[in-house]
Each structure stands twice: as C-alpha cells, then as structure tokens.
C-alpha cells in the first residue's frame, strides 16, 4: 500500500464536522428521550392497556419494525408534504427517529413488563394502589432495569442508523463526511475521520446510558 494520506483539509473543514457532530448528538438526544417515552406508553398498552387500543399499537409497531428506516424517513420528508404536512429536514429526521425507536423500544420494554412476577401486581393492589400507580411505581422501574442493557444497545443502533438522515440533506456527521469527500476527493480520510468520531460517540453514548441507569434505578438492586 503506497497511499499518501492527506489530512490538511481538516483545518478548512473542521467547522462542518463540529456542526455535523452537534446535529447527530441533537438527533439522538431527542430521539432517545422521546423514543423511550413513546416505547413505554406503547409497551403499557400492549401488556396492560385497554383491549381496543392494542391492535392500533400492534399495527404501528409491526409497520415500523418491518420497513426500512430510510423509507420511513423518505415517507415523512418527501411523502407527507402531499398531505400538507411540511417538515424541515431536522424535524423529519427527529420524528423518524422517535417513531422508529418508539416501536423497537416498546417491544424490549414489553418483554421487561411481561417478565414481572404476578405477585408484584398483587402486592401493589394490596397496598391500595390504583393499576396506574402499580404500573408506575412497582412494575415499570424494575422492568426497565431488567432490560436496560438491551435498550441501551437499541439506542446506540438508532444513533448509528441516523447516518441515513444525510439523504434528506440534514447536515449530520455523515453529511459532513460526504460533503468533504465531494469537495476534496479525499474519501478515505473523510470516512476515517467520521468512523473514529462515530466510534467515540457510540462509546460515549453507552457510558451516558450506564450513568442514567445508575441515576434512575435503586442502587444495589440486581441488574
């Protein structure tokens, strides 16, 4: 291999990379928080919710889990304007990520809820808690704690999957790498830099999620 590496362009283009990183972080921050909340609501409906709502949520979850993320994104960005819903590329990207993570996380969280022993529900009822209070205080937190590692992985997958939002001209990290590649023709270097940044972001995100776990789950409880 006698490839001559050339990273001089970094000085000219680093603002673009920094902006790309900021947008990727913004996307995953909004996507993770809103996506997990949506997932909790959907998991509650599917496990314990009213019977009439279950097919609706099931249809949503199956639709999202069985279609490509890119198509969901194109549908929101290029398709919805036909119905009069005009979203900017960042709004579209955020919405697509929330909807996508909502469906996947609901299945993970539902597994945690269904693994809750029957006695926990009865214990809640015997303390005169309403079904909602039982769910909120007795079922949900231990459920989340059980599936937290799996949920963390899903969040990281969605963060990495956010690379495709560059297809609708959202100027995330992948867009920055593509842009630099088409201006400098230094494809190898541009993608080395973006690979390293994605790797660091993923490791960082995992650490953040571990710390969130420490904060919201009782210390010393079994993982």
């Amino acid at each position, binding site marked *: 291999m006698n490839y001559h590496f050339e990273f001089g362009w970094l000085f000219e283009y680093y603002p673009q990379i920094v902006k790309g990183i900021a947008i990727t972080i913004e996307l995953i921050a909004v996507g993770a928080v809103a996506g997990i909340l949506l997932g909790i609501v959907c998991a509650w409906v599917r496990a314990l919710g009213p019977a009439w709502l279950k097919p609706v949520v099931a249809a949503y979850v199956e639709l999202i889990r069985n279609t490509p993320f890119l198509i969901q994104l194109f549908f929101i960005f290029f398709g919805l304007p036909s119905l009069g819903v005009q979203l900017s*590329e960042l709004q579209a990207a955020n919405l697509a990520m929330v909807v996508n993570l909502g469906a996947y996380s609901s299945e993970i969280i539902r597994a945690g809820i269904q693994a809750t022993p029957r006695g926990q529900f009865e214990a809640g009822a015997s303390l005169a808690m309403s079904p909602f209070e039982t769910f909120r205080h007795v079922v949900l937190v231990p459920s989340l704690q059980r599936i937290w590692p799996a949920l963390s992985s899903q969040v990281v997958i969605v963060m990495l999957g956010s690379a495709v939002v560059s297809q*609708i*001209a959202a100027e995330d990290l992948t867009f920055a790498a593509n842009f630099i590649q088409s201006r400098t023709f230094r494809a190898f270097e541009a993608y080395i830099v973006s690979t390293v940044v994605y790797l660091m972001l993923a490791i960082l995100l995992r650490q953040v999620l571990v710390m969130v776990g420490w904060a919201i789950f009782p210390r010393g409880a079994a993982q």
Partner: protein
Amino acid sequence: MLSRRLFVAIAAIATTIGFGSVAKADALGDIEARGTLRVAVPQDFPPFGSVGPDMAPVGYDIDMANLIAEKLGVKVELVPVTSANRIPYLQTNKVDLVISSLGKNPDREKVIDFSAAYAPFYNGVFAPAEVAITKPEELAGKTVGVTRGAVEDLELEKIAPADAVIKRYEDNNGTISAFLSGQVEAVATGNVVAAAILAKNPPKRPELKFLIKNSPCYIGLAKEQPALLEKVNGIIAAAKADGSLNAIAQKWLGTDLPADL
C-alpha cells in the same frame, strides 16, 4: 525480385493512403456518393439519445441526425457511441458527423471542427413561475436544492449570497423530490434534469430563473471540410428559422429553444 515486391507493397500502401485522403478531402461528396450519412449518436444519455422500447435509438440527437440526413437527401446510419469514443470515431473516419450532445472547448477544437449550436445545454436556477428570482443576489433567504458535488453545487456556492440556504441532496432524484414536495423553493440543476421533471407534468413546473453555466451542444465534424460544414450550418439555420428545431426541443426538452442559441 525482392525490391520489386517491396515497390508494389509501398505503392499499394501509398494508394490506400491516397484514397483515404481523397475521401477526407471531400466528405460531403463522399456522403452523397455513398447515399448514407453516418452519425455518432449517444445511447445512454436521455433525452439526447437512449434506447427506445423497440430497441432503436431515440432522442434529440437522433431526431437531429434524421433531420440533417433528410435535408442532404441521403439515408441515415446511426452509430451508437459513448462520450469517451465519440471523437475518435470521427477522427478515424468511422462516422461523418458526431451528434452526441457534444460541448465545445479549446482542446476539442484542435482536433475537430464544430457546426453552429443545435441544442441548448446549460445549468441554472429553476423555480416555479410565482417565485421571483432573476439573479443570484435574490436567492437571499431562499432555500435552494442542489445535487451534492455537481458543477451547479460548486458554482452556486460561489455566487449565492451568504443567507441563501443551500440544501444538498445525494443525487438528482433527491433534488427533484425535494423540489416537487416543496422542501426547497428553487433548484440549481441542468436543463436536462429540468426537462425530466417537466416530462412528468408535475404541479410545480420548474422555469429557468438565471443561468449558471451555458455550454450548448454542437455537431462535430472532421477538420477542414468547408463544404460539409457549410451545408450542415445551412441546415441548422434553416431548421431554426422554420421552427423544426424548436419542435425537436419541445418534444425532448419540454421548452422552446433559447433565443440566443
């Protein structure tokens, strides 16, 4: 004995070369004697030239080739070429004319001659009629879609004001979709892409607002063929005057010929 054979061989070669240069000296007479006009046309560059449903080439350049052959009173023989080999085909006398969306530049002018322009080829900023833009400065505050890395992208970056929002899509389809779905107010692209949008009869019709780069198409022919060049230029001028060239432009590009072509 040997020297006699050598002499014959040399004479034969000289004769061949001699005939070759005779043929080259009067391409127009050669075409008329042969009764066919050999034209290099594209087969992979719609709407200028592509393969039709019956496997025959169709497009702007093919219609142009037919028009010229008809005016010359000869049959047409279409020779499919790629953009890389279209000039070598002409230089090696495999074709009489290159009608293959060929642009003019100084390097090409050293090796072949060019007719008058016969087709518009340019890129510029396009938007629906109701968007008022006439020059780059008026893009201020507007969102413009462009295909990332294309010539228009690089040029637009230089001429657009700082507060114009340039949205870069991966390919022409992304740019077209963004325009049609209203995600951008204008697009910077080529007239061929604009023609592809118009061909689908969309609710938003892209109209040229200003030119970024103009590089019309010319017919290429071998050097030093004044009779053929004059004839071809005459046919082009007549076709512009009687509207038949405009009809070809309407058919394949969906717009009238620019006045300055």
